[in-house]
């Protein structure tokens, strides 16, 4: 156990803080997976975004890559304020803000999620020789957040919680880019942020299309197109 701790003891205080926050990002992914109330899911998503903002700012201080402060500001604006605000507003207009979207077998899903995290660490293992430990953890956690969000997309039945899963997946990618490579070139970050913005708006429009066509937001009822004969 002490050997395990030694790997981290030489890190500076900021780096240790970054790793702690990284762990909290992962925990927030588990929380998103287990949370069943729509409004709480959206709030958790905003919290995850806020954790990302803090991580980004810390990385910027630690590496003196000050352009990361712009990324942090952009994330604050987009993922902590705009997307949660838009989702809450649409959910209120559709009257589903207080609805439940509970998991069928929460125990199985959470155990599967734990297995996914172990899988992600084993994928990141070969990179260990190549990079310092903080990068390896960052890549593993980033991939874990992406895969947990995919699990969330699979297990949820409401369109709005699926969108939260979709956006949370993007959080995982952003986290990886910030901690492993100190962000992407500015033009790419702006482009990705623009895509997220457009996606959020299109999703917002789309909820109404879904409701108008099947009079519900349960995507389970979207089941006409299939290759299996009835």
């Amino acid at each position, binding site marked *: 156990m002490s050997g395990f701790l030694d790997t981290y003891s030489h890190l500076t205080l900021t780096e240790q803080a970054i790793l702690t926050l990284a762990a909290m990002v992962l925990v927030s992914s588990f929380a998103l997976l287990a949370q069943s109330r729509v409004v709480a899911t959206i709030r958790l998503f905003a919290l995850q975004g806020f954790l990302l903002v803090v991580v980004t700012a810390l990385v910027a201080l630690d590496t003196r890559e000050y352009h990361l402060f712009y990324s942090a500001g952009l994330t604050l604006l987009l993922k902590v304020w705009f997307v949660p605000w838009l989702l809450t507003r649409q959910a209120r207009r559709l009257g589903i803000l207080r609805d439940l979207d509970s998991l069928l077998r929460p125990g199985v899903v959470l155990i599967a999620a734990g297995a996914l995290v172990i899988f992600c660490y084993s*994928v990141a293992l*070969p*990179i260990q*020789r*190549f*990079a310092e430990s903080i*990068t390896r953890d960052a*890549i593993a956690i*980033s*991939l874990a957040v*992406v895969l947990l969000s*995919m699990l969330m*997309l699979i297990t949820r039945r409401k*369109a709005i919680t*699926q969108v939260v899963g*979709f956006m949370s*997946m*993007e959080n995982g*990618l952003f986290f*990886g*880019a910030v901690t*492993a*490579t*100190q962000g*992407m*070139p500015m*033009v*790419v970050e702006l*482009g*990705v942020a*623009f*895509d997220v913005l*457009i*996606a959020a708006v*299109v*999703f917002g*429009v*789309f909820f109404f*299309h*879904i409701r*108008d*066509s*099947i009079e519900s937001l349960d*995507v389970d009822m*979207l*089941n*006409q*197109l299939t*290759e299996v004969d009835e």
Partner: protein
Amino acid sequence: MSALFWTLLTPLAGGLLLALIPGTRLAARLNILISLAGFLFSIWLANAVLRQGALDNQYFYIDAFNVYLVALTNLVSFTTSVFSRTYMLHEFEIGRVSERQMRLYHASFQAFMFTMLLALTTNNLGVLWVALEGATLATVLLVSLYRTPASVEAAWKYFILCGVGIAQALFGTVLIYLAAAKVVDGPDQALLWSSLIRHATELEPTVMGIAFVFLLVGYGTKIGLVPLHNWLPDAHSEGPTPMSAVLSGLLLNVALYAVIRVKVLVDGALAGGGEHAPHLAGYLMMSFGLLSFIVAGLFLHRQRDIKRLFSYSSIEHMGLMTFAFGLGGPLATFGALLHMTVHSLTKSAIFITVGQASQLSGTQSIDHIRGVIQTQPAVGWGLLIGTLAIAGFPPFGVFTSEFLLLSATMQSLPWLTIPLLVGLGIAFAGLFRHLHPMVFGNRPEGLMPIKATVWPVVLHLALVLWLGLSIPDFLAHWFDQATILISGSGLL
């Protein structure tokens, strides 16, 4: 440089303009004019690149490989916009779409063209990702344009599945950036394809190998590779038919283009050897490609919707191309480039006639489309000849490219020609068992010919025939330059 500027600006400004102006008929005409202008600018660009060599700067990288795709994309966009005018005005007149939806349709059409051209011309792998995701965003509201439950479902599947898939590609891009940051100077240079290719042999092989798996899964979702293809038949069949033509004919090519660009980098990184298989990328592409080719061919047999039928045919052909690029070598690469061209031209021509045939019959159900040749000979013959061409009949271009691919397989991996030939046979049978009663057969009572623009189909099929009989010198040279860029050595 100015040619590139105009090629990109035309669809961007055109899309904004079409979003603003009311008047459906005017917009449909303007859409044709904008697409024609884009096509002329792309010819100018291609001419400049072929004369002066590759264009390479901080933002754009254009060589023989992507400039030919730019020209092809603009050509098909122009002919599709011509077909789209009569087709969409008919849909508008029978009240399937409102005036606002028509405006959305025209604006998205040009926005979609812009994202594809940006993806093809950019030098930055991150911007490539942004543009491909943008292509999904530009088309998702078009898939659900008719607002039927089935079309909303198709659009939702398209949005979520492609979004999830392409997120994997962004993860792969981050990994490439991680590997590149160590060897390329300056963070702004580290995602530029032109500087990555200069340092390809120094890139860390382990990271590049993992990155390629993510990139192939991500962009492979957009190519429609089995088992990531689930969204494709739905998205391509539920939207308006001109969209099906450009989605099947063009967007799939652009996604495949992204994979090939990355494959060249990964091949460079893995060539150093060590404990890694040097052809990892090629083998992965070959297995995904062959699986898609066979599975899609089998699925052709059980389709009931004419547009789904030809969507599966697209998956089948994209699988074949992925296989060929994975196989590598000048002969296979040349064949695959030719196949990209003839497949685009043929498939968009088929979707145009399919749209006309289903408007004529008032249904997309294969069981209810009957006797098209008797009702409207131009449409029926177009559908028949187009399907003959896509099934690989000589003397059409698809036959030539498939023949080249089979010879290349025979040279390097002879056993694999057997599944390829069997797959071609399965697909041929799958197409013709459905097609025969649709084009021949008795004409149902009371069907009247519709207003249909025929010349785009004639043009496409004539080009495919020409490419099958003799590839003109300048084009062969062009393909050869692209082959050298991808596989290292030329064929001619």
